[in-house]
């Protein structure tokens, strides 16, 4: 077995909790932006509270990353891949943090009430401004595609480590013991 250090449980748990949330969020988002079907209302009503849940969990995760820094990559990983790994994680964290804020902000600028559940609503965080809304709405789409592309690269890299390099990097996150 590899001697590669594992992520602590406090890091693995939120990773595997948020992974399906984020992937679901990306698929719901791209689906609802195209949809005219009766599913649209359901998708929107999931998208908003799920986005806020991701935002809150992301904040906890950033704090955790300082308390529990990730294990170093094995020495066998070339420096370019090392850089790519670092950069893609920065992008993933940045998007987890920014995407919900852009969503909340664009709904605020459009003055849509932001319903979480039942009577629970979020207050607007930006002034009612159509031009600002249009800009943030476009940004939300562009960042969503970037998020999906980064997730796909992360997924592919994890499989590459697990199946081809077999250097213990995948197991450092994907082990249940």
């Amino acid at each position, binding site marked *: *077995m*590899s001697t590669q250090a594992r992520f602590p449980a406090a890091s693995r748990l939120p990773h595997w909790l948020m992974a399906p949330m984020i992937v679901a969020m*990306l*698929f719901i988002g*791209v*689906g*609802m*932006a*195209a*949809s*005219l*079907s*009766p*599913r*649209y*209302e359901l998708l*929107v009503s999931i998208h908003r509270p799920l986005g806020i849940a991701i935002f809150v969990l992301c904040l906890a995760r950033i704090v955790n990353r300082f308390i529990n820094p990730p294990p170093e990559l094995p020495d066998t990983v070339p420096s370019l891949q090392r850089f790519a790994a670092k950069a893609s994680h920065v992008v993933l964290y940045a998007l987890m943090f920014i995407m919900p804020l852009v969503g909340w902000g664009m709904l605020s600028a*459009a*003055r*849509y*009430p932001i319903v979480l559940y*039942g*009577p629970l*609503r979020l*207050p*607007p965080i930006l002034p*009612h*401004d*159509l*031009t600002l*809304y*249009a800009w943030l*709405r*476009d940004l939300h789409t562009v960042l969503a595609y970037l998020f*999906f592309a980064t997730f*796909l690269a992360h*997924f*592919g890299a994890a*499989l*590459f480590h*697990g*199946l*081809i390099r*077999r*250097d*213990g990097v*995948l*197991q450092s996150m994907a082990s249940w013991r």
Partner: protein
Amino acid sequence: MKPFSVGAGPVSSAGVLVRLGAIGALMLSVAGAFAYVGGWLSPVRLTQDRMMAAFQHASGTHAGFRRNHAKGVCVTGWFESSGQAVALSKAAVFRPGRVPVVGRFALAGGMPFQTDAPAKVRSMALRFLLPGGEEWRTGMNNIPVFPVNSARGFYEQLLASSPDPVTGKPDPDKMKAFLAAHPETGRALSLIKKRQVTSGFANSAFNSLNAFRFVDAAGASVPVRWSTVPVQPLAADSAEPSAAGDKNYLFDDLIAQIAQHPQQWRLIVTIGQADDPTNDATLPWHAGRRQVDAGTVTIDHASSEDGGRCTDVNYDPLVLPYGIEPSDDPLLSARSAAYARSFTLRAGEEHEKAPSAVTAQEVQAGGKS
């Protein structure tokens, strides 16, 4: 060595190829699923983009305007609840008292400079501003039922009524084919044609058309449709525009009437029974259903869309307060989705928008009539 064991140690070069292929296939499947959900792999699926393209096909390009109900004016006023709907819905708007209202009167269709005419469908949109940031938005029309009962039907009707590129007029054969494929539209249109056309916006009744659900304090819900019924006396349309040659006569009359005296509508809620369809807006409900007078909408101020308070508002029918819920009517999701896309498009075009047909000067002059 098993080809897919996730262990340690080197993999044979043939194994590497197989594994690379497997990784590529997995990534491609995820990307493909994403593209499928986004509608890129389904050329015939009715998406928001295709609906917007159909509006453009039917009405032309009018940057900065709503894709439908493009010609309108803004109004403001208030809703005074009678308290009588409290037993049906826990929504704060029905408790006795007043809430401010920002509304919009408009003509159906995507042409922002069309000429007013009696038979054109008139609409009233209302935004009730409840305490605590809650809102209720509703768009209603002066027709008894809606001509279609699905997004697909709406889309096909738009295409069938679009001008032919050669003649510049809709092709009657296309409309005939559409009506043959949609018998529900034929039945709805015969009801719509029989409606009483009044002399203007102020004495028109407007109907929600779609069904919703009112939820009471105990969590029990009933299907409802609502209407705003004018307090102003009915007067049949004289077929003679009040100011001959005024292409905005409906709007100008309304502006003049509001300037003279606040205009009022009673908000009437009709409670459906088990055999009243909630998922088909082409079908009327049975006559004689219980009705509740929920209160009175008073409109005391009109303004042009240019600078008016309704302009930056999307009258999304799914913006509902706690205590009002959507029904199973598929048009609610379709309207909400299409309105959202129209709103996003016109928000991005705001800087290139031409002045609205009813200008600020026209409103200031008290309407032309």
